[in-house]
């Protein structure tokens, strides 16, 4: 039993790392602009399909698709922002509707271009097992867990230490005051979306490297990312990591100790419990520092 639980915890942590990578972009945009980008999962999926195309056409490891995925997804994210910026009234509710529509368009675009077939990497190295004592994982899971933690650290540093990161936070706190300080809110919002696109690109390549992709999967990713963002506490980067790990471990332990049939229920129960006890999320505004 101990061996089972150890593997469940290990799998849960790795799974949490991948959840965090997927949720990070959504959390950034939500935290800085109060915009819930419901097309975020589709942007992640777009990167995954770019990784598939690069691997299948050029025969190279999907990791090498990252530069192309970055370019395409960042541009797509900025295009999403360009559309959002046209909204003048009731921005929060209208962006929900707009991004939901963009998500549907992206899903059907993926379906048209890549068909409904499922895909996953054929890289043997990415799929090969890494055995650490009684713990098993794939190279891809470990690799992208590290990438996820590094990106999170980088994002936290950028938001708290760099001028542009501080500008993003200033605009999210008080747009008018930020303007008076000489910050261009439009530029900082574009940068936020571009960074969210960057994170989505990494998340998509990671997803393709250890999972199975299909056109209808984008919506599932968005929902998962949204749950983690709210669980974390709006705008909290460390909260995203903790929330994602908590969700990953809860799901994994549920599968091991009970049944996979209950894993979604367990995840949602955790979500509701946390919100019931801590309405601002794990690292919500009341607890956030810096």
């Amino acid at each position, binding site marked *: 039993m101990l*061996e089972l639980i150890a593997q469940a915890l290990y799998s849960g942590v790795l799974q949490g790392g991948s959840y965090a990578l997927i949720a990070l972009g959504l959390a950034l945009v939500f935290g800085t602009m109060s915009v819930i980008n419901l097309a975020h999962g589709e942007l992640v999926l777009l990167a995954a399909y770019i990784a598939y195309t690069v691997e299948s056409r050029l025969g190279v490891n999907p990791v090498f698709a990252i530069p192309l995925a970055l370019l395409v997804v960042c541009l797509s994210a900025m295009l999403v922002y360009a559309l959002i910026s046209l909204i003048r009234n009731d921005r929060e509710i209208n962006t929900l509707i707009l991004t939901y529509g963009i998500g549907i368009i992206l899903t059907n675009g993926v379906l048209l271009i890549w068909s409904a077939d499922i895909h996953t990497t054929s890289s043997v190295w990415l*799929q090969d097992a890494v055995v650490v004592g009684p713990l098993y994982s794939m190279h891809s899971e470990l690799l992208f867990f590290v990438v996820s933690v590094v990106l999170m650290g980088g994002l936290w540093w950028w938001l708290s230490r760099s001028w542009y990161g501080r500008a993003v936070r200033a605009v999210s706190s008080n747009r008018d005051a930020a303007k008076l300080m000489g910050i261009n809110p439009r530029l900082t919002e574009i940068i936020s979306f571009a960074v969210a696109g960057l994170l989505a690109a990494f998340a998509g390549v990671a997803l393709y490297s250890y999972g199975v992709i299909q056109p*209808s999967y984008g919506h599932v990713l968005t929902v998962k990312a949204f749950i983690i963002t709210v669980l974390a506490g709006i705008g909290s980067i460390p909260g995203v990591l903790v929330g994602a790990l908590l969700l990953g471990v809860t799901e994994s332990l549920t599968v091991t100790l009970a049944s996979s049939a209950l894993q979604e229920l367990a995840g949602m129960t955790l979500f509701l419990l946390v919100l019931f006890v801590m309405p601002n999320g794990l690292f919500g505004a009341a607890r956030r520092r810096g």
Partner: protein
Amino acid sequence: MNTFYKKLGLTAVTALALSAQAALAAEFLVGAEIPLTGNLARVGSGMNEGISVAVEVFNKTNAKHKIKIITADDESAPAKAIAAVEKLAGQGVLAITGGYGSNNIAPASDAANKLGLPYITSGGVDDALTKRGYKTFFRINNTQGYQKAVVGLLGDMKVKSVSIIYLTKQATGDLAKDVQKELEGKGLKVGTHAFDPAINDFKPIINKVKLQDKSEVILMVGYENDYVGILRAAKVLKPDVKAMVGVWSLATPKMASEFPDLMPSVYGTALLPFPAEFKTADGKLFADTYKKLYNKEPDYLGQFGYVQSMLLFEAIARAADKATLSKGGIAQELSKTSRDTLIGHVIFNEQGDNPNFVHRMGQHQAGKIAIVWPANAATGKINFPGVPW
């Protein structure tokens, strides 16, 4: 002048007669309600290919009757499936072919029944579909056909224990439970592990099989993405099993070509070996037309779509010949079906089910698929024990 008018009159009469003939040979409208988008888009597209091949073959081989298909995407959603059927009915179709997923087929065929439209499918194996006793509902495959094949193969393997990993959907859950019941009845030790459609890491489940069940065989009841996830997790954890067995969507040319590292020695239900060998004239015609239209090897979804549609088109033709189209003739003709097809001899019982349906089991072997069960249909020797790692 009189001669001119006579000629003119004769020409007019001939033109009228020809147009009347054309009207008599008018196309019959048939609706295809299929998921072309949403999470069933892949399987829906496969079935749609078979339907298109059936239309092509029927129209080419029938001088008297022609079929025109109107396709409606049900978006893999029950409510949209009802809307699709109602829309097709509004466009004047005589019957519906298609449907995928028991949860979509149930409301869609319910709507078709209320509208008096025959509905034929191969996309849902839930027993509840036929238990409704609709006179307008027909299905060419069922859970029992898959169950016989899986249990038959496991019986030939003479294994003592099996772990069933199954998706928590109606059709997959029913099949898993039926197989479990039958295997336990035969004295086998059976462990079951349900998984949620949202799962994306199967390692915890495979670890339970490895450390707790210690079964000889893993039986997977799910869909393509599930099989890939399970096989990948099993390749990492390497449980001490003798065989990895699945059901639909697994022993297919696509899986062989897309996932060559995961498939060696894996079993799944298969109608034909790969490369396909069609021995009957009907089979050759189907395969040639399929390759001409889609420039690829036909798969099982195409075959099922083709068979169900061909049976429907033939029933429409017979009803048209008997002038019973508007008197429930299509359903009556379908219920009288008794014909050899690409999936075996098809008849329909009172509930519209095909009691003759028995699947075959194929095994991935060196990039090809050999039929290994039943013995009388085998095209290759079984590789047992054998796993992809």
